[in-house]
């Protein structure tokens, strides 16, 4: 309701302003076009945030100076500290970078954003940039109609830059015309009260426009048209810096605890920098004058001096805060704690991760792995085994022998508690995330959704299997009892093997290693069929037991098949082209059968002829 009232008020004020002043309309149009350009530019850069940015980020997070440089350079290139903040929060939420690296990037972004003021003050106001804007928009729009993601991205960047230039042009024209009618400097307030008042105005303007860059351009054009005093412009710039943290805070609402910590770091940095700048504004202004002299900037070139001021006070903030990054990180970790979550709650699916397609894909993969972790515990529990025993090096025969003391779990209840809601959350996240994705990216997401379904199927098959496992575990017929224990061993072997495949060495490949499991699955099936024949022939088990054993062996086969299918999609961390090549080399069913004939030696369950388990 408040939001609607606020929107209606803004609309009314603007409409009244447009009615009484055509110049104000021109300035406001300039701001609107500029903001539209920013959005287009951000969309364009997002098209390139895939593998390349991920690779650069992974190499720029090991040292503080590297993350700081990344922040400076990326913000200077993209001209949007908001986009860099969103990307950083998104990567942090997906666990791609550490909190310290994130803080470094955000500090760097604050300095990087000052290049915008330099560009606008040095070129934007002196060159007829509208002349460059028009061809940019035309070429950009043509590129927007292209199918290629990269060309479309370039199209958005060109259109965005074109609109930025047009926006600056309209703002400049508007202020030039404005000064002939009204002198805004009459409203200038000097001294500390003016500084505080204009800091507040700058902050509010940035919160409304959601862009410190737009506020700064507005300040520079107004200053160039002598509609505000230099002193008030400095205060407005400080306010713009403070207001920009709102974007990061909004971005962090849907993020995990690290994302919220990063937004808090951003707020602390900007608040401290602003406080220092306000407290020492006259000393900083003197320093700006000296630097400007040294850079041969004319004394009355206030727009360039504003750019110098913007860089100087952000640099002071970095110099002040840099030695305390470690303390800041520890303080934030103490202040903001992760929400306590159950095994059924998503760990990686945060709204912030949806912002970038590749991060969303990574988050889905991690969450599906989390789903598998839960499923692993349920399946081992269904076999009456302890997960840690299956993961250990202990002999599985021994593990199964000693497992009679373990209490069986209720798979239905475990499924409802640990799987159902998590799987639903993954599906919901995928349907939300895929709207902005390319076909290839959407296919990858669908493959993870299918992997989730395979996991669920494996649990359901284990549930069917569990009934007879429990029943025959206490059978007086030692043959059937041992056969059922053999099924437990076989499935536990599959789970253990899958754990090994999850951490492959450089020599082996994940997908090809899974062929070994497929081969083993076939081998076990053949061996059981051979044994079954002899058991029935020798009347060591009755026909009912034989049918149960055959059905349950099918369930084991099905669990294994589903888990292998899931692992092929989920476990490999190789690049897509290598994964594709691995799939080409992976053996087909008939090739596995041929290999089985060459290598198989049917095996009996250990000690089947007399030993009691």
């Amino acid at each position, binding site marked *: 309701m408040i939001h609607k009232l606020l929107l209606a008020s803004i609309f009314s004020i603007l409409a009244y302003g447009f009615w009484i002043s055509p110049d104000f309309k021109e300035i406001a149009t300039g701001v609107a076009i500029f903001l539209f350009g920013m959005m287009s530019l951000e969309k364009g850069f997002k098209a390139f945030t895939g593998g390349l940015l991920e690779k650069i980020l992974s190499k720029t997070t090991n040292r503080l100076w590297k993350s700081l440089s990344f922040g400076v350079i990326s913000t200077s290139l993209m001209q949007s500290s908001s986009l860099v903040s969103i990307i950083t929060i998104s990567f942090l939420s997906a666990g791609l970078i550490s909190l310290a690296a994130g803080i470094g990037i955000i500090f760097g972004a604050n300095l990087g954003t000052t290049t915008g003021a330099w560009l606008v003050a040095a070129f934007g106001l002196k060159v007829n940039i509208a002349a460059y804007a028009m061809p940019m928009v035309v070429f950009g729009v043509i590129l927007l109609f292209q199918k290629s993601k990269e060309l479309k991205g370039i199209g958005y960047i060109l259109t965005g830059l074109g609109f930025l230039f047009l926006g600056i042009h309209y703002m400049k024209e508007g202020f030039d015309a404005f000064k002939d009618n009204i002198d805004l400097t009459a409203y200038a307030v000097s001294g500390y009260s003016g500084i505080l008042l204009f800091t507040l105005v700058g902050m509010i303007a940035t919160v409304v426009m959601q862009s410190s860059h737009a506020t700064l351009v507005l300040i520079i054009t107004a200053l160039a048209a002598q509609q505000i005093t230099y002193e008030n412009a400095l205060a407005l710039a400080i306010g713009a810096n403070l207001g920009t943290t709102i974007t990061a805070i909004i971005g962090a609402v849907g993020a995990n605890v690290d994302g919220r910590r990063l937004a808090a770091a951003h707020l602390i940095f900007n608040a401290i920098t602003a406080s220092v700048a306000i407290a020492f504004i006259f000393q900083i202004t003197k320093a700006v004058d000296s630097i400007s002299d040294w850079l041969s900037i004319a004394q009355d070139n206030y727009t360039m001096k504003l750019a110098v001021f913007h860089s100087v006070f952000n640099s002071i903030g970095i110099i002040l805060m840099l030695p305390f990054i470690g303390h800041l990180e520890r303080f934030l970790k103490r202040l903001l704690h992760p929400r306590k979550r159950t095994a059924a709650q998503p760990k990686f699916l945060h709204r912030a991760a949806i912002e970038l397609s590749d991060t969303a894909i990574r988050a889905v993969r991690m969450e599906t792995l989390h789903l598998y972790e839960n499923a692993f515990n349920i399946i081992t529990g269904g076999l009456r085994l302890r997960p840690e025993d299956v993961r250990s090096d202990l002999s599985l025969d021994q593990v199964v022998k000693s497992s009679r003391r373990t209490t069986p779990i209720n798979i239905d209840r475990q499924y409802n508690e640990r799987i159902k809601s998590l799987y639903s959350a993954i599906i919901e996240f995928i349907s939300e995330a895929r709207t902005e994705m390319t076909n290839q990216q959407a296919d990858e997401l669908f493959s993870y959704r299918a992997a989730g379904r395979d996991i669920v199927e494996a649990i359901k098959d284990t549930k069917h299997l569990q009934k007879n496992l429990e029943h025959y575990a206490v059978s007086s017929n030692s043959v059937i009892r041992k056969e059922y224990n053999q099924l437990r061993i076989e499935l536990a072997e599959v789970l253990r093997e899958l754990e090994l495949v999850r951490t492959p060495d*450089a020599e*082996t490949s994940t997908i*090809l290693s899974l062929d070994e499991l497929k081969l083993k699955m076939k081998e076990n099936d053949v061996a059981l069929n051979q044994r079954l024949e002899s058991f029935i022939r020798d009347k060591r088990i009755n026909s009912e037991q034989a049918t149960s054993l055959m059905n349950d062996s099918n369930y084991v086969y099905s669990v294994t098949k589903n888990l292998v299918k899931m692992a092929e999609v989920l476990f490999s961390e190789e690049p897509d082209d290598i994964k*594709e090549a*691995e799939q*080409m*080399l992976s*053996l087909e069913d008939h090739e596995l059968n041929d*290999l089985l004939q060459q290598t198989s*030696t049917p095996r009996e369950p250990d000690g089947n002829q007399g030993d009691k388990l």
Partner: protein
Amino acid sequence: MKLKELLGKADVLFNTDDLSRKKQKKCIKKLLRRLSKHEKSLHQKLQAEENTEIIEKIEKKLALTHAHREKGLKIIQEMNEEKQKIRKKQINE
């Protein structure tokens, strides 16, 4: 150079199918090198092993790795033959 020839060359140059085949071939070769290394290390392990159960396991792994390598080599051979066929067809045209 005739326009037709020029267009033909441009077609080969910008043919995405051809490019993706080249990429696939490169990846398969990379995997083959990895498999060959793995096969060698399995052979070494086999020679040093005395436990018959483990020997059997290693032998199975070896057979599987060998099957993967054979399949990879066959795919590369087929790719080369396919490429030669396309070249011959282009020359004839």
